């Protein structure tokens, strides 16, 4: 290329090379993480697929490998996630709406702000201890599904709040002003414009947090989820077990076949997770269609 000015030495080649290096680096890292996940799924599938049948899904805990199943764990997990969702979603979204739309910048609110961010980083076992002290003992809920679900709700609440706040913050201010300018109150503006527009982002936060809740074993162990449960839960006050607990229990067994059962359990957990996320993504995409900015 001809040089038309000495003050602009030709550096285009170097810039192009840097851009290419960065692009290749990004794609290598992306594929690396996907490959790791693929290897994991491959190993788990190879070990567990042979055990995955109706008998496995429809049986309770057993000493005998051929008779062992995850019925109690699967139903327990579904109960737990439902209780967690019912508690964490309304409370989390309400907190986010308050902090973003109504709270203002008072010192109390800034204090709340910092605390919520920090709570998102607290180890899950600490939430387990809190759940044990607060719900199991003090509220006298015992080692019930309700106590477990409430503990998991506490655990995911900061994530729901933070994600919902980000989604609310991303709604253009011009939409709010448009509503205010025709005599809408703050609540009407939030209810009819901000929340519908923020819904896809809020859904993403909910997906992430419930996915986390479904895989937690530590807090469930602490609040007293049992392994040997020989009945299906009928209500929120029943004792329970959960998939991660059964998986953990089997992995600690020295017998090779129990290891394979654990793999089968992981496959079931992954399927539940995928189903849950797929339905949430479907709902989110439908909501997104009405938001074309």
């Amino acid at each position, binding site marked *: 290329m001809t040089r038309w000015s000495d003050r602009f030495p030709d550096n285009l080649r170097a810039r192009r090379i840097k851009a290419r290096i960065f692009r290749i680096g990004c794609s290598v890292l992306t594929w690396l993480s996907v490959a790791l996940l693929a290897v994991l799924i491959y190993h788990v599938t190879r070990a567990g697929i042979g055990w995955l049948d109706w008998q496995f899904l429809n049986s309770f805990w057993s000493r005998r490998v051929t008779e062992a199943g995850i019925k109690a764990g699967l139903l327990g997990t579904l109960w737990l996630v439902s209780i967690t969702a019912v508690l964490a979603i309304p409370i989390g979204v309400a907190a986010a709406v308050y902090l973003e739309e109504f709270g*203002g910048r008072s010192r109390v609110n800034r204090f709340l702000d910092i605390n919520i961010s920090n709570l998102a980083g607290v180890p899950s076992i600490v939430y387990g201890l809190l759940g044990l002290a607060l719900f199991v003992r003090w509220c006298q809920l015992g080692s019930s599904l309700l106590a477990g679900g409430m503990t998991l709700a506490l655990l995911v609440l900061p994530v729901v709040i933070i994600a919902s706040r980000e989604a609310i913050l991303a709604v253009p201010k*011009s939409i709010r*002003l448009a509503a*205010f300018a*025709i*005599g809408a109150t703050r609540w009407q503006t939030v209810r009819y414009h901000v929340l519908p527009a923020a819904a896809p982002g809020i859904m993403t936060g909910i997906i992430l947090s419930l996915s986390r809740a479904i895989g937690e074993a530590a807090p469930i162990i602490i609040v007293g989820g049992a392994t040997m449960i020989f009945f299906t839960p009928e209500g929120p006050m029943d004792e329970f077990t959960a998939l991660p607990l059964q998986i953990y229990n089997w992995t600690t067994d020295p017998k090779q076949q129990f290891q394979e059962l654990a793999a089968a359990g992981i496959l079931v957990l992954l399927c539940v997770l995928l189903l849950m996320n797929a339905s949430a993504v479907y709902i989110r995409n439908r909501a997104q269609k009405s938001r*074309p900015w």
Partner: protein
Amino acid sequence: MVTVKVTETTSAAAVTQPSPSASPPILAAQDLTIRYGEKPAVVSVNVAIPENRITAIIGPSGCGKSTLLRAFNRMNDYIPEARIDGGVTYRGRDLYAENVDPVEVRRRIGMVFQKPNPFPKSIAKNISWGPAINGFRGDERLLVEEALKKAVLWDEVKDRLNESANALSGGQQQRLCIARALAMEPDVILMDEPCSALDPVSTARIEDLMYELKHLYTIVIVTHNMQQAARVSDFTAFLDAGRLVEFGETEQVFTTPKDKRTEDYVAGRFG
């Protein structure tokens, strides 16, 4: 939050009157000062907006035009650091008095923004939502039709009222925003550079529309565009560095300005 200090006396006589021929003022600012933090945006402005006329507010960028406009329907309430001293009266009532609900103020004094901001909903819903939340009882479809006809948009959209407003062109969106404001049957419409994001054809249509509407409404328009101010407005206020330099009938301001700064500005020598 906005802290409000209101002067006790709000006599109209203290306010700059444009000319004896003008209709009585519908909106008036008395010794109005608005600060963002420590920085004043509007300084001791006295101005009276005549009813059923178009009043243009002109001035260089950052002179406080939009801030002054937003004071007329309390939209500055949503700028957390804005502080207001002095008063604004609407038909003689202090807009910043304790017992005044800003929602009620905005329900009567509508606003059209610089960038078209339709709701991401259907065209019909854009019009009907405001009246609906304000307790409108009547035929919603008729209301939508009336508002769109007043905004000269009806013929272009009558077959797709249930489609998204975001599919409209920029100029159509802005007329939809005007229709949305009109559906509230407002007393005053404030327009904050309504044509700055539009092409000349759309601009001309909005200007025609303003001309049609001024017999029914009071319009206050902030504009960068002096030709626009000269074309559409009856009265012109010239602001510089937050101060009202000159206010009078548009023809007088543009042809025989009393202040040297106004003369330089309208002649295009600065700003």
